[in-house]
């Protein structure tokens, strides 16, 4: 028993309608796949971006705001951490790296971030892609995707807009930067940033350099009395227990300390809720689309009931008719599901690309177990639902159709 030739004949006869059915299923499935794949890409990309920011210490306030400022370089007004807390952190024996972070300037829209050379190296995975790390106040390294070559002199502007006439005239306080190195790709917005010594950031904002007058070295040790407040400090603890110890020690009235993952988990929980709602809506859409398509197929096949009646007259069993209709419907659903998987993957890839460009967070949409399970479940449900028109056609009285 081989219903395939008849199924192919049905596809040929109803090719436009079949294509329409497949397209509808494809779109419904693609919606679900794109949401699922995109949400995962966003989650994985944002988690990867925060990997090297072990422990964040900031002034009491919203950890989310601090995280978005420090890791994703999204401008937001955050309280400044007291220099005294920073000094205490510098004295912590279990902290391998203690790096203040400073913002506030930009270069053609790219953020200029101040920090320490050890943190710049840590962010770059231990070594730079080219050149060397900054050693002077007027030197900088650029992110992996920055267009500025090594050796070029840069003039930064204050704030997040274009350079002001004052900046154009000679740079803020007449200060320029020379690019001396390029970071390895980090998959974070830091890839587009200009990373300077923290002293530069303080200096151009009129806050001194954190060192005694005439002291031109950069990085620790700092002069406690000369330190300004800072948005956040990144701490790389020596061990995992040390990380927890430091986090607890700096959750005080003067400071807050958190692992980026803690904040992300809360965000993911929120995203997860949204994803579940979207997923439910998508599933409902898919079920409605398939139900509508089954109704359409039933109407379509009802118009061809005489063909099935003739086959019965020629000796075809009811099982053959059932298998033919079931195969036809299942084939449409399978083609739509497969098309939806590919289209959803493609759409998620395109959205990821634009999101990565807009946010600087590297993300790649992939098709994983969730998407395959979604398509698999749809195929199983579809194959079961395909039995409905198959059963209805199978039960149609032969003689009534023959007499038409």
């Amino acid at each position, binding site marked *: 028993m081989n219903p395939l030739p008849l199924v192919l004949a049905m596809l040929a006869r109803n090719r436009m309608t079949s294509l329409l059915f497949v397209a509808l299923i494809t779109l419904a499935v693609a919606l679900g796949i794109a949401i699922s794949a995109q949400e995962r890409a966003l989650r994985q990309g944002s988690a990867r971006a925060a990997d090297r920011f072990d422990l964040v210490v900031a002034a009491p306030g919203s950890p989310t705001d601090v995280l978005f400022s420090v890791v994703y370089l999204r401008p937001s007004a955050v309280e400044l951490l007291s220099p005294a807390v920073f000094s205490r952190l510098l004295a912590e024996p279990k902290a391998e790296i203690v790096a203040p972070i400073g913002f506030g300037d930009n270069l053609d829209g790219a953020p200029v971030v101040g920090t320490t050379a050890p943190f710049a190296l840590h962010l770059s995975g231990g070594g730079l892609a080219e050149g060397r790390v900054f050693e002077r106040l007027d030197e900088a390294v650029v992110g992996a995707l920055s267009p500025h070559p090594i050796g070029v002199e840069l003039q930064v502007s204050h704030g997040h807009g274009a350079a002001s006439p004052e900046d154009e005239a000679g740079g803020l306080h007449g200060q320029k930067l020379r690019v001396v190195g390029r970071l390895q790709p980090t998959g974070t917005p830091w890839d587009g940033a200009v990373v300077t010594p923290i002293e530069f950031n303080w200096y151009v904002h009129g806050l001194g350099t954190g060192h005694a007058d005439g002291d031109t070295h950069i990085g620790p040790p700092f002069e406690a009395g000369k330190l300004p407040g800072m948005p956040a400090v990144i701490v790389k603890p020596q061990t995992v227990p040390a990380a927890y110890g430091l986090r607890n020690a700096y959750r005080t009235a003067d400071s807050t300390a958190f692992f980026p993952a803690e904040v992300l988990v809360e965000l993911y929980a929120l995203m997860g809720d949204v994803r579940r709602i979207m997923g439910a809506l998508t599933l409902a859409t898919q079920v409605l689309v398939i139900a509508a398509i089954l109704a359409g197929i039933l109407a379509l096949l009802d118009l061809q009931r005489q063909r099935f009646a*003739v086959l019965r007259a*020629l*000796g075809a*069993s009811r099982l053959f008719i059932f298998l033919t209709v079931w195969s036809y419907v299942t084939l449409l659903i399978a083609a739509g599901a497969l098309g939806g998987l590919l289209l959803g993957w493609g759409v998620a890839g395109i959205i990821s690309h634009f999101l990565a460009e807009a946010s600087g967070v590297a993300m790649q949409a992939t098709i994983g177990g969730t998407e395959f399970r979604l398509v698999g479940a749809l195929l199983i449900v579809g194959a079961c639902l395909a039995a409905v028109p198959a059963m209805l056609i199978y039960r149609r009285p032969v003689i009534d159709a023959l007499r038409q």
Partner: protein
Amino acid sequence: MSAVTSTGQSLAASGLVFTYPEAGKGRMTAVNIAALEARPGSVTALAGPSGSGKSTLLYLLSGLMRPDAGSIRWNGDDLALLGEARRDGWRRRNAGFVFQNFHLIEEMSPEDNVLVGGWFSSWSVRGLRRRAAELLDRLEVPRERTRVALLSRGEQQRVAIARALLFDPPVIFADEPTASLDAAAGHNVVATLRRLAAEDGKTVICASHDADLLDSCDRVVRIDHGRIAATKVEIAEPVS
């Protein structure tokens, strides 16, 4: 109930009753046939006006419908006692069907249309291709056409006859086989059916009111209100 009449490969019905429900009137009798026999090598026509019951009788004789009473004997089996699946099997093995409107699958070639029965039989379609080609050649159907819809109506009906003959069944049922053809094409189909009976020994049973076809039949059974009104038996001259 009448006694059973069965003679070898003859298809014989006796005491055949088929009723159907009609609102407010109880069950109406559509067919009430005391005895009818269609013999091998002959063409039997079921004639009568529209609504006389001739098509219903044809469907009963082919096992598409099950009578309320009576028997339909074929080679020792009583079709009336068989369940639907076994009647399907009986048709696959023993019967070919030709319809007024051919009911071919337009998207397919003539050869693939002839092979339709192979899809739901235990035969290998590959093995049946040669047979299909021979049948189309014998019935003078151009095989090179890619779609059966490109054939003339007469050629399409000959494809339908070839389809009915794929498994060389002993019985051919034809429901108004010439009704939608012009005179020449109808004459050709009649000649083909006559040859199948005369040369191949088929038992051909037609429901028709086509005078040309009725004139060519060995036996014409006139049906009126589901009953046999008259039977004309003659050995028809071969149709050229």
